[in-house]
């Protein structure tokens, strides 16, 4: 029995033009082409999308929870990257 031969794919869908592709779930299939077709049948039964990406789950390189501090904390102390950091004089709005 070779059930495991069907690979796991992650599915990303762009719900309408102008928006990002968003992760919606995963599915099993033989290859990328079949994964795309199944993604269409499984995840867009109600016309939820205009574009689909499929990626082999094994090909995703994810940041580890252990790395979270090293990855993300250093940016917590750079408030100057956010617009709200700057107080503008009342005379100047809408920037």
């Amino acid at each position, binding site marked *: *029995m*070779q*059930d*495991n*031969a*069907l690979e*796991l794919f992650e599915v990303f869908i762009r719900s309408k033009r102008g928006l990002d592709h968003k992760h*919606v*779930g*995963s*599915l*099993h299939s*033989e*290859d990328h082409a079949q994964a795309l077709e199944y993604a269409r049948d*499984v995840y867009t*039964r*109600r016309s939820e999308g205009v574009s689909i990406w499929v990626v082999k789950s094994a090909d995703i390189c*994810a*940041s*580890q*929870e252990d790395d979270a501090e090293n990855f993300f904390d250093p940016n917590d102390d750079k408030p100057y990257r956010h617009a709200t950091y700057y107080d503008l004089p009342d005379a100047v709005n809408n920037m």
Partner: protein
Amino acid sequence: MSSEQNISLQEQQFMHKIKAEEKIEPKDWMPEKYRKNLIRQISQHAHSEVIGMQPEGNFLTRAPSLRRKAILLSKIQDEAGHGLYLYSAAETLGITREEMIEALQSGQAKYASIFNYPALTWGDMGAIGWLVDGAAIVNQVSLQRTSYGPYSRGMIRICKEESFHQRQGYDIMLSLVNGTPAQKAMAQDSLNRFYWPALMMFGPHDSESAHSAKSMEWKIKRETNDDLRQKFIDQTASQIEFLGLEHPDKELKWNEERGHYDSGEIDWEEFHNVIAGNGHCNRQRLEHHIKAHEEGAWVREALAAYNAKKQANKAEAA
């Protein structure tokens, strides 16, 4: 720091997230029991969706109109989809779908006992959609807030899609009660057979429930069996009345003080009896699943072989 202290620190951080209503995500540290508990619940939920295709599939080819057939087919198809979303969510916990299917087929994993009741008439398609999906939705709405991220997101998606399931069931009932006396009798019969089993779907009383306390603490479950069941009883009473059907619970009575209906006791002996394997369809449902799976084996093997050939050709060309 010793590893023991380390674990307890991790556990503290974990509980902190749970208390702060932060979602737990796949790569996060989590207690082994939390993982196991989730796998049990999510896979059981997935199996229920998939086994749940059978009673309705049983009537698909006998649907009395083309319109109803199309609706029922898309509903059953949704169930397959929901099974798939849930298997996906469980897979993020480090178990494969094959392992889950094996657990189902060996009887190790459970599915909702409601599907061990037979679907005998077209009225049952109405009762299943209205009552069985209705009860499931009450539970699922609550589970949208579950603490595990992938499960919660799956539930949100499922709830969005399922609102039509209950409505199409009720719509079938409406057509029946507005039809001939024979149709109305069919509706009453289906209601009688599915009402109590639908109440049983919420599980044993809180005091008897084996997994409830820990699941509540970890916010896997967000509301207790009895609270959810009460919600369902309350909302269903007026729906039955509107259909002009007789309520199967003769003791049902509005309790002004509680703001809820008081109801008769569930036949727990029947509940345990069906779980123990004495329902009309326990064997049939599993055998059906095993048969389809076995008959599909050569197809899955063919896919693997074809893929291997393709890879080999690619390697040769390179």
